[in-house]
């Protein structure tokens, strides 16, 4: 009986929260407007603020990626709102990198908030679950970092800011065939992660086509056993690989580099965009990454004005943390959306469906310059085309490979 009462209490708590949230969200909407009197005045000229929503992992094992994207987006929103003119209201919800109910629920929460444009999701799994919803709801979706081809192919309203996985794998293979045609190549990848598997598959297909010498193609690990990556490194070492392709995130890559160093194995390591950030892992000995080749659209050490300003602001907001390409992608997403909205005359009063149609029109034609690339355009599927930039780590900074 007591248990029953306790449960009942909990149920009431949930109910009250339900109620609280509904009224709460309205409140935040109004207070947000009050907080920015200048913005409101400015917005009065062009209509109310555009509501852009993001879902991403903000808690749990993948939260660093979600938090990075959110951090990047927040900077862009701040900058835009400070400018006056069209205002943006931004909200991020936690999807725990889940590929079904949690993701859809995070997205629904944003919809209830009145989201007009969806700027997520951060991870491929969540993006896939949400993509079909956005098609139904006719909400424009521009994902910063969900890179599987299937995401963009779900609907004509879905665009990507990052390279698609097979595309990136193929570019890597091409680069290798140009620069290191005689290398004996080993591939280590995360078979439980669609991003990593997608790149590895794209790479292997292209490598076969180009006749590259791939000696190890099945050194996989999973999210559950990545505590030990020594076996995979040993496999590559034993096969005599002098080039090891690492299509996964810097978290695990740091582990691979450290272990390879302890066993005195020094091939050329080759990473993808997920590798960006490795130099800024706290406590990581960056000399281990010396000579590492990676394909990244973003370089936090770049000296152009936009990057310097972005990195400075990001550090201010995030305890001195250096932004990685996730943050940069997020930043670019907001600017791309902002530019398109301004061009198409979208504001807070435009319905989501109208905005969706207008934005599709814009994105099929427009060209965007951002932190992650110059002259970025999108094809009819919503996949981005930007120049893949390959860099090599030299003296702790990225140096472009010509």
């Amino acid at each position, binding site marked *: 009986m007591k248990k029953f009462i306790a449960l009942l209490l909990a149920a009431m708590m949930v109910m009250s929260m339900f109620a609280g949230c509904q009224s709460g969200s309205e409140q935040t909407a109004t207070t947000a407007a009050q907080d920015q009197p200048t913005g409101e005045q400015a917005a009065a000229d062009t209509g109310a603020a555009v509501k852009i929503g993001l879902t991403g992992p903000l808690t749990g094992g993948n939260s*660093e990626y979600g938090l990075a994207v959110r951090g990047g987006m927040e900077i862009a929103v701040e900058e835009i709102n400070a400018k006056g003119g069209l205002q943006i209201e931004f909200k991020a919800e936690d999807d725990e990198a889940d590929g079904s109910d949690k993701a859809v629920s995070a997205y629904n929460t944003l919809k209830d908030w009145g989201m007009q444009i969806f700027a997520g999701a951060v991870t491929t799994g969540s993006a896939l679950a949400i993509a079909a919803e956005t098609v139904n709801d006719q909400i424009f979706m521009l994902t910063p970092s969900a890179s599987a081809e299937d995401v963009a192919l779900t609907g004509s309203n879905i665009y990507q800011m990052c390279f698609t996985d097979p595309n990136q794998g193929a570019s890597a293979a091409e680069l290798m065939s140009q620069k290191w045609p005689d290398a004996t190549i080993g591939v280590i990848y995360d078979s439980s992660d669609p991003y990593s598997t997608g790149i590895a598959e794209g790479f292997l297909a292209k490598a076969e086509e180009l006749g590259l010498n791939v000696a190890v193609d099945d050194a996989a690990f999973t999210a559950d056993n990545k505590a030990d990556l*020594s076996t995979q490194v040993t496999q590559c070492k034993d096969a005599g690989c002098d080039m090891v392709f690492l299509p996964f995130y810097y978290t695990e890559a*740091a582990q691979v580099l450290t272990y390879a160093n302890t*066993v*005195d194995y020094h091939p050329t390591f080759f990473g993808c965009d997920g590798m960006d950030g490795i130099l800024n892992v706290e*406590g990581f000995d960056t000399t281990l990454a010396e000579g590492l080749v990676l394909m990244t659209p973003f370089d936090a050490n770049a000296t152009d004005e936009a990057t310097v300003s972005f990195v400075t602001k990001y550090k201010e907001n995030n305890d001195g*943390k250096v932004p990685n390409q996730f943050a940069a992608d997020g930043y670019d997403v907001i600017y791309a959306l902002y530019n398109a909205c301004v061009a198409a005359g979208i504001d807070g009063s435009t319905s989501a469906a109208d905005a969706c149609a207008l934005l599709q029109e814009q994105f099929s034609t427009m060209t965007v310059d951002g932190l992650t690339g110059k002259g970025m355009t999108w094809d009819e599927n919503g996949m981005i085309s930007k120049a893949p930039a390959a860099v090599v780590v030299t003296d702790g900074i990225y140096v472009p490979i010509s």
Partner: protein
Amino acid sequence: MQILQYLINGISIGAVYAIIALGYTMVYGIAKMLNFAHGDVIMVGAYISFCVTNYLGLPSIVSVAAAVAVCTLLGIVIEGLAYKPLRGTSSLAVLITAIGVSYFLQNAAQLIWSSSPKNFTSIVTMEPISLMDGQLVITGEVLVTVAASIVVMLGLTLFTGKTRTGKAMRAVSEDRDAAQLMGINVNQTISTTFAIGSALAAVAGVLLCSTVPTLMPTTGSMPGIRAFTAAVFGGIGSIPGAMLGGILLGIIETLSKAYLSTQFSDAIVFSVLIIILLVKPAGLLGKQVQEKV
């Protein structure tokens, strides 16, 4: 030669599992609860050690001591607040509370240390031993972890076998009510067990991250589950069993990745576990208890 290197790799990760499993098995053996928060105490230990070394610039031995101190305290606090009130009720209730504690520690760690990974600097400064022209490399971490797990295993065996407190623990483990009647303070004994288990977790955390340098709020959870598996493998409650189970699990994992399939290594490892349990239902070194009729 190849196989030797794989064996060493297996022992390396296995010894880490073993030292975590020792903590698991001890708490289980005496308090009869599956402490799913153990893996997260490990994570806290590693963070403490990391902070002391990197932010305060103190030598690694001090950082280990600090981690042990903080984790012991943490263990006592967790036990007192979350487990002790439920003593004597269903063991499942305590299991769920332990899961709550695990969620709490992970999320607290995210708020305190952020979710970006940190690269743990190994506390082992020993140069790796290179044999046969570098074909076979034994890292200092392997030697230290194996040595540490053996020391901990022997220490625990001696402690429970020889000391007064240790004997009290064994008595509590055999029969709580009888122990109470014999004048043993059961509550205090269990609290002591948690304190020791958490201190071990700190050591395990430091060694885990010395072997696998990535440190994140979720660092402890997967090795924790693996170590739990290892403890059952060896016979949960048995101290040498945890050691054996950990090492074997590491070796099986590595060899299955090296020679069978990397994609399916998880499935292979757990299948082997199931098969072992079918042959020896109480684990490798566990006692098969006959129910008294």
